[in-house]
């Protein structure tokens, strides 16, 4: 434990701002990925192991499409991942809706193996690094005397906009209402004349889009490699558990919590960096077994 370093950091604007932005970009990217995982789980009851691979594909697609134009790359890559998600759902996953949870995990784990190797085939075995897009090669924005890179601000803005948009979608549109109702009681939703299978596919596409978007945003600031989906997958699971299964608001809280724990925890407890997030999850599960905002949905 290094509380001295922590005290030193919180007394310096520079350090606080830098850790704060780091917490926010980690948390918001994680939120994008985890909210998709949570939606898919909440509505369809599917724990999608391959969700991290969709994030990876988002990053790679963005890397490849960047040559065209940053805006196009961002939108097209995320949409591309959504289409891949649709294919996965229609061709494979819909056959295992009624299968035991573990077989869903096995199937989606197989996707990880396949997609990682597909990535190797297309983009090679090594790390690729895409660098900050030209549009963001500009002087940092200063908060007080602390510089924040322009691209970080972009991630934060997009993350918050998507979070708000998702919240509006879920609470203010009929599609959102149907999604929330289907999470509670899909049978009753069907009895009211709604095609629940189509809604499920829609949710899977939305979840894939969010994972892809997370990858797209992360691509310039993280190294891109086959298997990069693994660690964000585990963290997304943690977010979903901490936030409460199926709760998007909970995912937001959980993701930011993890962002902060990672950013400031690594200063205060450098020796425990790898374990902090898991300690947080253990603490939450032991004290609030249904998650911070969990509504008590039983699996």
């Amino acid at each position, binding site marked *: 434990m290094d509380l001295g370093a922590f005290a030193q950091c919180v007394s310096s604007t520079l350090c606080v701002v830098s850790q704060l932005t780091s917490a926010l970009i980690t948390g918001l990217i994680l939120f994008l990925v985890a909210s998709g995982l949570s939606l898919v789980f909440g509505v369809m009851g599917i724990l999608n192991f391959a969700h991290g691979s969709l994030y990876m594909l988002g990053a790679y697609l963005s890397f490849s499409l960047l040559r065209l134009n940053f805006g196009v790359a961002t939108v097209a890559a995320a949409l591309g991942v959504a289409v891949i998600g649709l294919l996965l759902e229609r061709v494979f996953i819909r056959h295992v809706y009624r299968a035991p949870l573990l077989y869903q995990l096995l199937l989606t784990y197989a996707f990880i193996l396949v997609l990682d190797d597909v990535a190797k085939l297309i983009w090679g075995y090594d790390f690729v690094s895409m660098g900050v897009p030209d549009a963001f090669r500009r002087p940092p924005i200063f908060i007080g005397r602390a510089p924040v890179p322009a691209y970080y601000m972009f991630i934060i803005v997009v993350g918050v906009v998507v979070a708000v948009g998702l919240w509006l979608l879920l609470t203010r549109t009929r599609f959102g*209402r149907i999604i*929330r109702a289907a999470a*509670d009681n899909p049978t*009753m939703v069907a*009895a009211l*004349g*709604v*095609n629940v299978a189509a809604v499920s596919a829609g949710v899977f596409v939305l979840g894939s889009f969010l994972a892809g978007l997370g990858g797209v945003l992360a691509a310039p600031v993280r190294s891109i490699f086959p298997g990069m989906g693994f660690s964000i997958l585990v963290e997304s699971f943690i977010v979903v558990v901490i936030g409460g299964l199926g709760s998007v608001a909970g995912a937001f809280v959980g993701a930011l919590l993890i962002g902060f724990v990672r950013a400031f925890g690594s200063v205060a407890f450098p020796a425990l960096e790898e374990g902090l997030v898991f300690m947080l999850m253990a603490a939450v599960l032991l004290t609030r077994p249904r998650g911070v905002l969990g509504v008590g949905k039983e699996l």
Partner: protein
Amino acid sequence: MTRGGGPLLELAGVDAFYGRAQALFDVSLTLRRGEIVVLLGRNGAGKSTTFKSVAGLVTVRGAVRLRDRDVAGLAAHRVARLGVGYVPEDRQIFPHLTVAENLDIAVKPGPDGGVHWTRERLEEIFPILAPLRRRAGGALSGGEQQLVTIARTLMGNPDVLLLDEPSEGLAPAIVKALAGLVERLRDEGVSILLSEQNVRFALRVADRAYIIDSGHIRYEGTVDTLRGEPEIMKRYLAV
């Protein structure tokens, strides 16, 4: 009374299954346009299963005809779009959605493409709805939930309404209001198949009655005839 020949809804020789367990045996019944028909029977006799057979929520063998079209085996949402409104026994309001959101989910035109019911009209018939609009479904009382689920189903403009034990657990005053409501709906052109354990309530509102026991239909007749059959009422309904 009947238009277009046959009855509006007809079950002919329906068997229903939960997995391997058979819950209905050769059930036949009809609902004609403009009728209120009640299905009487004790707990576990097969009333809810009969309704689920119509709504497409249970595996069936036999024919379920809606306006002469066989709908047995159709997915639940297709049956609903053909004009069957199902109000389940335990109401199944969406607890995390507000009343307005609950209503909104069910919005669709009727089987003939017409829109007879709107939120404004429903709020006129169910004056209780308007002040509840923003309340969460899970926070309502049993009686309020019952009215909201009926209103919700009407938003889909059904011409057949399946009401599974609507009076269960409701206070006497609410049951009375419910009786008036059911009659009003019939007058507005909705044909109603009702199931009940509350025999008094059922006999007051219904035109005809069936008695189901252990998954078999044991009796069929008009309400007036049934009133004159104390033996039957005692044997199957413990009345």
